[in-house]
């Protein structure tokens, strides 16, 4: 079984299945499942972001909701200016708001990258359990800021009345928006694969395994980790931007520590450090939520039980269970 179900074949199968579901749903005329698949693709992207820090870098960040939420709020804030026909700022120069996704994504990536740079620079001074608590604390700081800052909705969040546009696509059609999110996910996965195969990926792997030796080679483990953390935050921020447009709503709940925990769950359910681990994990999560959420109001209890089972008994996640241990070559 391990021969047949190797990691590469499983990855391909997951990618095709995620694409097939909405195509099938549209063919059957039920776009509900398209939205569900879009949600899975976006959450997978958030997980792919965390996986750069967590899986490849061994950095246990419990604060990635911060980047997810900042990406979301970047879109929400610009959209709120755009729908009110207000410029974003008037001094020192006038900047008009936009509803074009490529620009919004760029802003979201830059904003979450900047936040990751600041949070990373502080929290990477420490390690281990300190790092977990500090990333969690800084994310909570941004959460409280969003709750108590009245200018952009505060506790109630912000609505985006019309989904932002993308040149050449009608993003209001569920299938178009899904294909856009799916394409973004695949492009990012390809980039992550490229990076992990390149010099930087090798350095990051080395830092995770033996930082002292990396330092002895004259490289700075701090800098390598910081770059990985920033990249990780950027990808999760991009996912937040897409999530805002999917729901046409952003609220502080995107920044809450439950979100951080859930993003980590995507990575772990699928298998940490595997390229497609977060994709598998997010698909399982969305499926689980859909199936059990329909049966019981208390479905998160069963999610907790599943997670506990995976942690205690199946440490490689789903891909690990099916494809055997990760090859470290």
């Amino acid at each position, binding site marked *: 079984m391990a021969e047949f179900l190797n990691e590469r074949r499983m990855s391909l199968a997951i990618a095709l299945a995620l694409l097939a579901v909405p195509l099938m749903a549209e063919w059957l005329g039920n776009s509900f499942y398209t939205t569900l698949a879009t949600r899975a693709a976006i959450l997978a992207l958030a997980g792919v972001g965390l996986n750069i820090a*967590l899986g490849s870098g061994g950095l*246990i960040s*419990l604060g990635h909701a911060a980047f997810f939420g900042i990406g979301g709020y970047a879109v929400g804030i610009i959209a709120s200016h755009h729908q009110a026909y207000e410029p974003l700022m008037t001094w020192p120069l006038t900047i008009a708001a936009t509803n074009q996704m490529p620009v919004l994504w760029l802003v979201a990536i830059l904003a979450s990258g900047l936040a990751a740079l600041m949070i990373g620079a*502080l*929290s990477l*001074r*420490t390690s*281990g*359990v*300190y790092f*977990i*608590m*500090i990333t*969690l*604390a*800084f994310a*909570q*700081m941004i959460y*409280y*800021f969003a*709750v*108590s*800052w*009245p*200018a952009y909705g505060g506790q109630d969040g912000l609505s985006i009345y019309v989904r932002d546009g993308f040149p050449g696509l009608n993003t209001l059609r569920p299938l178009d928006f899904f294909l856009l999110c799916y394409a973004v996910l695949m492009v990012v996965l390809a980039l992550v694969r490229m990076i992990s195969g390149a010099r930087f990926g090798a350095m990051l792997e080395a830092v995770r395994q033996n930082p002292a030796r990396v330092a002895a080679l004259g490289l700075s483990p701090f800098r390598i980790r910081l770059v990985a953390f920033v990249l990780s935050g950027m990808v999760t921020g991009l996912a937040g931007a897409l999530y805002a447009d999917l729901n046409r709503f952003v609220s502080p709940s995107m920044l809450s*520590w439950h979100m951080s*925990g859930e993003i*980590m*769950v995507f990575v*772990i359910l699928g298998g*940490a450090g595997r390229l497609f681990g977060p994709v598998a994990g997010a698909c399982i999560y969305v499926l689980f939520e859909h199936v059990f959420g329909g049966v019981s109001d*208390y479905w*998160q*209890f069963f*999610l*907790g*039980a599943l*997670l*506990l089972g*995976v*942690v*205690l008994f199946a*440490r490689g996640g789903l891909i690990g269970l099916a494809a055997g241990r990760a090859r470290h070559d």
Partner: protein
Amino acid sequence: MTFALFTEQILNGLQLGVMLFLMAAGLTLIFGVMGLINLAHGSLFMVGGFVCAAVAVWSGSFWLGLAASLVASAAAGALVEIAVIRRLYDRDHLDQVLATFALVLMFSEATRFVFGSSPLYLNPPAMLSGPVMLPGGIAYPAYRLAIIVAGLLVAGGLGLLINRTRLGVRIRAGEADREMISALGIDIRTLYTIVFALGAALAGFAGALVGAIQSVEVGMGEPVLILAFVVIVIGGIGSIRGALIASVIVGVVDTMGRFLLPDLLSGMMDAASARGTGAAIASMLIYVLMALVLIVKPRGLFPAHG
């Protein structure tokens, strides 16, 4: 702003600090002895609040509720330790975070299933329900003052327990070298269960006391848990003394920031935006404090080991 109001806010800050200490002491003890990061500590806080509220309503006695909450949270802690936590001591921090996050989900949903989604309300005991007059003619709620006193007594008791008793010697030995003390014939598994149940009882105690000030609801422990993490980062992990000092600092800074900042800013802008901006900055203040401590002393103000 009067002197009386100022003193009242300082006392409120002290009261928050004492609460945070009860949480942080358990967390830091569990980390120091067993090397475990426990996200479910906030759930034990919640168990304390719910059991106290439920038993107080059922029996009509706050004190019975308080006693029941101590027993219930210690029992819940011991049960969770034996069923799950025990398997996590040899695992890395990631597994500990995930497993205890799973426990948070299960505790929250189970509590919601039993008690429903709407919050419970718990009244302070009759003898503590009025204000007391402090020297200087300041009226302060007796119940909040009692929380401060109770918290300080527990802090003192915990210090005595750890420094002056046989169990305390074992706990400190467990922090220093766990193989050695099991080689000396001490049942380390039981010791771990006792330490975990002790931490759980402290959290449950805090939850029950706070329940009479705030509402008792699902998820009430999580903001406190994260504040307790901030306390531990500032105080230095594994240090009870550091946890006490940092708790008081965090409690007072947070309360005074919320109290003073809107006033300070109202000199610079109109009242409404001063209130909004002040509240937003005040909510970030203790995290900024944490960042500053990290820059100056990455291992906290009072690191326990080296």
